[in-house]
């Protein structure tokens, strides 16, 4: 990935920036990243986190924002700048993380989140919860299913290569991909036990 010296120069408005995001333009994401990260890092570091926490949390939030934009879950809001929405989204995720069991017993948390009825980050938070649930359920699946799903969806390997790695026939690899994804879907939507 090689970025221009000023990734934002091609995006003089939020509308153009959003169009770049929809097209998965590296420069658009680099622009938004550079505009938002330092503020978020400062926020995390003044709210019980380290720079490493900030990086991890921001990259997770940015990744979820990327998928939400790509899939059409997030649409440009006329009332909020993109960098503000991303900051608020990552901030709410960080607050949730602080409130999780990992942090709950170590330090009290006194936070205030300013929300309006049509807060564009609400939909992103719902989206984020679904993402977490999918990946948590994946960890509860059988080893072979986890492996097939990881190879196919996350590592992006073709079924022929997955068949070779897993010692399956290509047709078996295809069927396993289908069955395992269906199983994950049933778990997510509460329609079936783990097999």
């Amino acid at each position, binding site marked *: 990935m090689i*970025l221009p010296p000023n990734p934002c120069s091609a995006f003089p408005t939020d509308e153009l920036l959003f169009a770049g995001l929809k097209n998965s333009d590296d420069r658009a994401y680099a622009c938004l990243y550079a505009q938002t990260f*330092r503020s978020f890092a400062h926020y995390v570091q003044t709210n019980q986190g380290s720079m490493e926490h900030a990086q991890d949390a921001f990259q997770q939030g940015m990744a979820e924002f990327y998928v939400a934009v790509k899939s059409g879950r997030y649409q440009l809001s006329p009332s909020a700048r993109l*960098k503000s929405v991303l*900051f608020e989204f990552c901030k709410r995720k960080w607050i949730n993380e602080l409130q999780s069991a990992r942090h709950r017993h170590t330090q009290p948390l006194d936070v205030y989140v300013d929300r309006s009825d049509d807060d564009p980050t609400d939909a992103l938070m719902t989206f984020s919860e679904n993402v977490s649930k999918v990946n948590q359920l994946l960890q509860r699946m059988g080893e072979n299913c986890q492996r097939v799903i990881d190879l196919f969806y996350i590592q992006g390997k073709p079924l022929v290569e997955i068949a070779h790695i897993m010692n399956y026939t290509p047709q078996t690899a295809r069927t396993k991909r289908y069955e395992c994804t269906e199983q994950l879907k049933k778990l997510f939507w509460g329609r079936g036990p783990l097999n």
Partner: protein
Amino acid sequence: MALTESEYDRIEAYLEGTLSPDEQRQLEAELAADPDLQQAVDEHRVIWEGLQVPVAVEYFQEMHGQLEEQGLLEFDDLWVEAVEPSHSSSEHPAHPHAEHDEPEVFVTSEPKTASDDPTSHIEVAVQDDLDVHHPSPEPDHQPDDWDTPPESDNSDPHFNGPDE
């Protein structure tokens, strides 16, 4: 209703946005006429989206490294947003090729720990108390605060995301 095995590739190509326009129109017509199929696709989409995120995290880890390497994430004299060309009369030292860039936000020195005074290391043009009481990274500006793209950027290659 579950998707059949034979429908998988087509539905995932639809979610990826890689169907041809004709194929997309055809599928959307089928979805409009078949609520069960629409629901099956909606349910599949949630799983598919969840599995896209770990891939995207890797993309942004790489991007972070690249931005850091190019000095765009430094905590010293960092440019973050372009401004009107007329506001800038000289090259920015961090970005000698972006003539009209002007630092909007300066942050000096290493970030402090949570126990430090959160207001002390912000110098210019940024909220000095970006704590839980403030929902946005900095005050919003109107679009006309942005720079116009310099001609040199027209030749920048277009980089695609990790899925393309």
